[in-house]
């Protein structure tokens, strides 16, 4: 990085003033320094050793995914641990977990844009990438749970097939297909739209003819014309407006997969808001998990500042408390319903064979997050990294508890059974983590992880000088 763009020195007084609320971007940056700092990560010929190391680990896990899928397609879904009465297990736990993680990306890129939250600017690009990759990982589970995805397509999408069979539109599972595929498509469109002006920047700055050609194609010939910017900004706002109800609908529909059934532990009206809050909570944890190493290893502390870290922690605190409230309401209604099956479901969660997971999730999602109240915790980055990983564990456990404990002991004691995952379940889960990380490593190497043109709009240079308006 060019040292001439180092931030200017500040007086002690100014620092004290800024100290209370850290800045969204460190002072002293210009169009050129912002563009160079972010663009350099992508355009530099040298790839850091750490990148290769990280990608290598991700690649190994990706190969585990390939092996698991290969074995699954040869032998069938019998290699997984789920069986009657627990007919749904890792395949839906991981689906809900990944989809939930994706939600923070859309929240940051769309909802915070509509609320004019300037701090979103430096985290929206990689959070959106996270959304796309998480949706890709999520979609894999229900698709492969069909056993033969290439034959199962007529269950999922309405198309004129030779059997004359059509999907059942009264089923939440079909709603889910539409919600998730729409979500994936709209997220991809939103992400690509945001990338185009940055592709033009990389095209103009790339030294190698090959890079210039590739970025040139991706930039669609973008030239920053005022007429284009006007439509572009309108389209960007419209996409944000469209994505906002969409993201809320997606996890609501995911929760309908459970809430519309009659099973104790699933049949609850609180599910949609409770799931949406949980999604945002786990998604912000994942954004934090990715942001902390990203800002450290690529020296992006000027752009992803303590302000972002603080705000993300606060969002996690709020949404985590909503989730904790959801747990309390689940327990309250189980008691208040006076329904023995509902009551037993709750009793079984708290004291049954899976109780250790239930109390772990309460420990993380209701008790541990209270640490976020303290500024000293919000300032302690290594500790926050660990907490964000634990939040992801906690939210995974939540889905495990909701799905497995509700299914394994339902109305008839004669059909009760235990569930245990096999190594192929774990292989597939670890494999999707590998896919996610591999895609993310490729993303930070080849595409700008922070939106360059949006960062330019928040440096002081972007402001018109006052005399113009006179």
């Amino acid at each position, binding site marked *: 990085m060019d040292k001439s763009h180092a931030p200017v020195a500040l007086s002690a007084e100014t620092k004290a003033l800024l100290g209370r609320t850290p800045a969204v971007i460190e002072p002293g940056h*210009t*169009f*050129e320094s912002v*563009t160079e700092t972010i663009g350099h990560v992508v355009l530099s010929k040298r790839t850091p050793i750490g990148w290769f190391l990280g990608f290598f680990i991700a690649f190994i896990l990706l190969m585990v995914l390939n092996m698991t899928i290969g074995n699954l397609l040869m032998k069938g879904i019998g290699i997984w641990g789920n069986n009657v009465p627990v007919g749904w297990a890792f395949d839906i736990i991981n689906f809900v977990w990944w989809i939930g993680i994706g939600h923070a990306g859309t929240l940051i890129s769309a909802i915070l844009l509509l609320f004019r939250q300037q701090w979103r600017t430096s985290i929206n690009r990689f959070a959106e990438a996270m959304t796309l990759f998480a949706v890709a990982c999520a979609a894999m589970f229900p698709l492969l749970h069909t056993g033969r995805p290439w034959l199962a397509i007529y269950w999922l999408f*309405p198309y004129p097939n030779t059997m*004359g*069979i*059509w*999907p*059942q*539109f*009264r089923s*939440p599972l*079909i*709603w889910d297909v*539409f*919600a998730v595929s*729409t979500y994936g*498509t*709209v997220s991809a*469109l*939103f992400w690509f*739209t945001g990338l185009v*002006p940055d592709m*033009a*920047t990389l*095209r*103009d*700055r790339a030294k190698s003819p090959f890079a210039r050609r590739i970025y040139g194609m991706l930039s*669609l*010939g*973008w*030239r*920053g*014309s*005022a*007429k*284009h*910017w*006007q*439509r*572009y900004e*309108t*389209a960007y706002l*419209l*996409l944000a407006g*469209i*994505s906002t*109800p969409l993201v809320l*609908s997606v996890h609501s*529909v995911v929760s309908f997969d459970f809430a519309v059934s009659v099973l104790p532990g699933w049949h609850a009206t609180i599910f949609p808001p409770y799931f949406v809050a949980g999604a945002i909570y786990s998604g912000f944890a994942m954004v934090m998990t990715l942001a902390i190493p990203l800002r450290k290893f690529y020296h992006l502390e000027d752009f992803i500042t303590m302000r972002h870290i603080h705000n993300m922690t606060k969002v996690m605190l709020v949404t985590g408390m909503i989730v904790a409230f959801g747990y309390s309401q689940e327990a309250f209604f189980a008691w208040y319903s006076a329904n023995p099956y509902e009551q037993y479901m709750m009793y079984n969660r708290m004291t049954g064979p899976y109780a250790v997971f239930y109390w772990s999730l309460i420990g993380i999602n209701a008790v541990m997050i209270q640490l976020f109240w303290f500024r000293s915790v919000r300032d302690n980055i290594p500790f926050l990294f660990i907490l964000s990983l634990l939040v992801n564990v906690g939210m995974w456990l939540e889905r495990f508890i909701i799905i497995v404990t509700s299914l394994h002991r339902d109305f008839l004691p004669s059909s009760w059974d235990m569930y245990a995952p096999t190594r192929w379940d774990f292989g597939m889960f670890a494999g999707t983590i590998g896919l996610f990380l591999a895609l993310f490593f490729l993303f930070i190497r080849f595409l700008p992880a922070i939106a360059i*043109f949006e960062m*330019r*709009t928040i440096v002081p*240079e*972007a*402001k*018109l*000088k006052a005399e*113009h308006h006179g």
Partner: protein
Amino acid sequence: MAHAAEPTLHGLMAEFENATALVDAATKARLAGYRKMDAYSPIPIEELNEALDLKRTRLPLLVLIGGILGGLGGFSLEYWVSVIAYPMNVGDRPLNSWPQFIPVTFETTVLGAALTCFIGMWALNKLPQPYHPVFNVDAFGRASTDRFFLVIETTDPRFERHATWKFLEGLHPVGVSEVAP
């Protein structure tokens, strides 16, 4: 090309150091009677819309239409499948159980609106466009980083090579250059 005498020119380009200078220049050019011009900047500048007298885009209307068509399409599909093509009688409940068709109708509305927004914006902007004359100017490489440009095109009825050059020079640009077509 409007001017047969000047077939080798797309227009004249003036380069500016900051957004204020560009907005200033665009306003002055419009007051001087120029109409066929465009400004290029590394960031969106709202004030340019007024300076260049840009019309409001039709995009929101298109997106509304796209959304409505998406919603109608989704609901019609569900109705046709559930009532006409593949009716399934479950406990004599109505075949057109419309409340259960709402989630998918909502999603297709969003999809229709989003696709219209995406395709519509690029189509109205006439992108992707592999070639454009402005890229012939070397200095234009910085239009995507930190420089601001105003181009007055030869198709403008008031365009006159020397007078326009003089006019642009008078706006205190970093430089003025000819844009080959």
